[in-house]
C-alpha cells in the first residue's frame, strides 16, 4: 500500500472502522513505514488526549437564569394569550350583545306599539259589548285580551333575570 492511501484511511484505522482486509494492509504498512507510523501515533495521541479532556461544569447561576427565562416566557405567553382572548371575547360578546339587545329592543318597541293598538281595540270592543254582547263581539274581545297578554309576555321576557 502507498503512503497516500494509508494516510487517507488512518483516522478510520485508529478508530477501528476499516474492513479486515484494509486493516491488515495498513497494519503491515505501518510496521515498515516510519513516516506513516509517526502520523498514526500522533493522530492516536490527539484522539486520546481529546477523549480525556475533562467535562466542564457550568456555573450554578445558569439554572436560575434558565428557570427565569422560562417563567418569563410562560407568563408573557399567558398574559398575551389572555389579553388577546379577552379582547376577542369582549369584541364578540359586545357585538353579540349589541345585536341581541338591539334585536330584542326592536321587538319590544314594536310590541309596545302593538299594545297601544290593542288597548284601543279593547276599548271599542267593550263599548260594543255594552250595546250588544253577541257571540261575535265576545269572541273578538276574548281574542283581543289574549293578544294583549301575549304581547305583554313578549315584553316581559326582556328584563332582569
Amino acid at each position, binding site marked *: 500500500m502507498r503512503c497516500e492511501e494509508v494516510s487517507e484511511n488512518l483516522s478510520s484505522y485508529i478508530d477501528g472502522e476499516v474492513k479486515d482486509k484494509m486493516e491488515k494492509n495498513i497494519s503491515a504498512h505501518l510496521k515498515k513505514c516510519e513516516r506513516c507510523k509517526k502520523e498514526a501515533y500522533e493522530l492516536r495521541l490527539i484522539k486520546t*488526549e481529546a477523549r480525556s479532556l475533562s467535562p466542564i461544569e457550568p456555573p450554578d447561576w445558569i439554572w436560575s437564569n434558565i428557570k427565569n427565562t422560562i417563567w418569563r416566557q410562560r407568563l408573557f405567553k399567558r398574559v398575551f394569550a389572555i389579553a388577546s382572548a379577552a379582547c376577542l371575547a369582549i369584541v364578540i360578546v359586545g357585538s353579540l350583545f349589541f345585536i341581541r339587545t338591539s334585536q330584542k329592543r326592536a321587538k319590544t318597541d314594536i310590541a309596545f306599539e302593538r299594545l297601544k293598538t290593542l288597548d284601543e281595540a279593547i276599548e271599542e270592543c267593550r263599548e260594543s259589548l255594552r250595546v250588544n254582547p253577541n257571540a261575535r263581539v265576545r269572541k273578538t274581545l276574548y281574542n283581543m285580551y289574549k293578544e294583549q297578554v301575549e304581547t305583554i309576555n313578549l315584553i316581559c321576557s326582556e328584563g332582569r333575570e
Partner: protein
Amino acid sequence: MSLMEEFEEVYTKYKVKVYSVCYRMMGTKEDASDITQDVFVKVYKKLNTFKGNSSLSTWIHRITVNLCLDRLRKKKLIPLYENISAPSPNPWLKSSIERAIQSLPPGYRAVFILHDVEGLTHYEIAETLGIADGSSKSQLHKARKLLRDKLSGVLL
C-alpha cells in the same frame, strides 16, 4: 412528575455535556453560558413531545451545535489562537489542544468535538449535524490532521 421536575432531571443529566460542547465550540465562557441557557429553554418547550431518551440526546446535541455554529457565523469569529507556534511541554498539552481545537474551522471543530471529545459515533454525528456518514468521517480526519499540524511542535 410535573413538567418542571422532569425538566430539572434533564438539565442535570445533560448540563455538563452541553456546556462543555458550547465552551469548546465557542471558546468563551460568556458564549457558552448564553448558548447553554438557550439550549435548555428550547428543550423545555419541546419536552412534552419526547418519549424515551434516545432522540432527546441527539436532539439536544443538535440544538447545541447548531446554536454554536449560528453564533460563530454571526460573529465571523476568527479563531483567537490560530497560530500556535510556541511549543509547550506535554503536561500542557491539554490546554494546547483546547486552544488548537478553537483554531479549527467551525464545521471540523464540531465533528471533532462530538467524536473525539464527546465520543459520539459517526452515525450519531451524522444525525446530529444533518450530514452524511462519510462526511463525518472525512471531516474528522481533516480535523485531526489540522490539529496534528498545529500541535506538531508540542506533541513531540
